[in-house]
């Protein structure tokens, strides 16, 4: 009876026994938000590539929102021994929120597996705007900071705000004088720019490319080191004299304390899926840019981003020193 029960239960929760190969036999995605958002899209996109390419047979998803992503992190740590195939998707806000102490954990309490895609930041103006380049922004800002109000899709002190303030600072302006107008989401921030109530928008590139192609807005600078192949006409901030590189990464984390071989298999699985033509189709469909760091490399990347954002947030008074 007990055995029968076990068989039934095994089938029901579909947990296969470890296979010991380099590629994971199954993947369980933990998504720290409800269905339909950016995290969800990334996990389901990568998962789709895994199943369609036949790389991984069994892929399941679990949505767990709350606490700005903190609940999913806490759950992954608490139930680590029950999460042998779990990959949690996360992104830059994780670094920001752990600096702000919204949740007590940071990426150090988890096992960073790999980053997969990146979204560069960009500064945008309306097509009719007199502002044509970053130096126009600086000129206007130095004359009167109140004449350059900047919209963003999240709260004050979020990356949209910090990156703009940092760019102002690098150009010799006073970052404290930046007037940042927060909106509830990138879409509404874009609407705010188009209604003319703000002059500049600081946001993610992926949300902007289509608006630029339809001719309603101009991107005056993107925070990459070199021009991006999809948009060769858009200047980088670096070539305008301010080498600021910033990418909002999305990547995967695993529970702490698992066997090293398991982590290696996870990294291997991600590397393999990124190379499939199925992933390429999904990447192109969503307009993603690949940013693949794995293991130690990813960890260092996170440390670097954390110290950079942390310094800025402290300077701007968003963190108590």
């Amino acid at each position, binding site marked *: 009876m007990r055995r029968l029960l*076990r068989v039934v239960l095994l089938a029901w*929760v579909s947990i296969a026994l470890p296979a010991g190969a380099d590629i994971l036999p199954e993947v369980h995605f933990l998504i720290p938000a409800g269905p339909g958002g950016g995290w969800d899209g990334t996990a389901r996109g990568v998962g789709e590539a895994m199943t369609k390419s036949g790389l991984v047979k069994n892929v399941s*998803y679990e949505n767990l929102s709350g606490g700005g992503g903190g609940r999913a992190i806490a759950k992954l740590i608490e139930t680590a021994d029950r999460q042998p195939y779990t990959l949690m998707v996360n992104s830059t806000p994780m670094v920001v929120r752990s600096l702000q102490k919204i949740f007590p954990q940071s990426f150090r309490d988890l096992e960073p597996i790999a980053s997969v895609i990146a979204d560069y930041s960009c500064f945008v103006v309306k097509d009719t705007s007199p502002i044509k380049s970053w130096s126009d922004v600086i000129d206007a800002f130095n004359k009167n900071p109140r004449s350059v109000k900047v919209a963003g899709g999240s709260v*004050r*002190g979020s990356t949209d705000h910090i990156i703009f303030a940092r760019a102002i600072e690098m150009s010799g302006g006073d970052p404290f004088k930046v007037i940042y107008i927060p909106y509830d989401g990138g879409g509404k921030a874009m609407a705010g720019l188009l209604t003319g109530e703000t002059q500049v928008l600081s946001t993610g590139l992926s949300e902007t490319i289509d608006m630029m192609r339809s001719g309603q807005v101009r991107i005056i600078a993107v925070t990459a080191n070199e021009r991006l192949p999809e948009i060769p006409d858009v200047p980088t901030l670096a070539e305008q004299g301010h080498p600021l590189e910033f990418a909002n990464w999305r990547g995967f984390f695993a529970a702490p304390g698992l066997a090293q071989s398991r982590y290696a298999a996870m990294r291997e699985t991600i590397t393999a899926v990124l190379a499939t033509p199925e992933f390429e189709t999904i990447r192109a469909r969503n307009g993603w840019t690949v940013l693949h760091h794995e293991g130690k490399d990813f960890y260092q990347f996170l440390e670097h981003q954390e110290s950079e954002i942390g310094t800025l947030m402290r300077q701007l008074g968003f963190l108590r020193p």
Partner: protein
Amino acid sequence: MTGSRIGGVLFLVLCLGYGYYAGEIQLDFFSQQEPFNARSMPQMIAVAGIVISILLIVTPSTRTDWAFLKDLNWKPALLLLALMALYGAVFDYLGYAIATVLFLVAAFIVLGERRPTRMLLVSIPVTFGFWGLMYLLGISLSPGALILDFLAGQA
């Protein structure tokens, strides 16, 4: 006491507490210089709420006849509230399936159903039917710590 007055007194207490905590909201460097910051709106609401609750208390209102309270069927209603809270409390541990079947059966019993086969014939198809629908939609409902631990122990 009329219903309005009781409500007014409770609401006044709520508003005072709310107003107190509104003053405790942390303000960052930027907010302290702003004319309208994270505290402003809650404080405005608290003041409006206090005025409304005082009006509720002092203005004349129609007398309420409280006799109907005795006729209400309190016991099953309170039991059901407790059951729902319990469902929320054990959901993560027992998992969706066990918790739901138990909840439904217990609620049927509270409401006077006594035929066991019928209760199971309703609760089990509902539970697994819903689970199946969610499965088709790609939404996973937690199997629960109990079952996962059991499986981990066996494997």
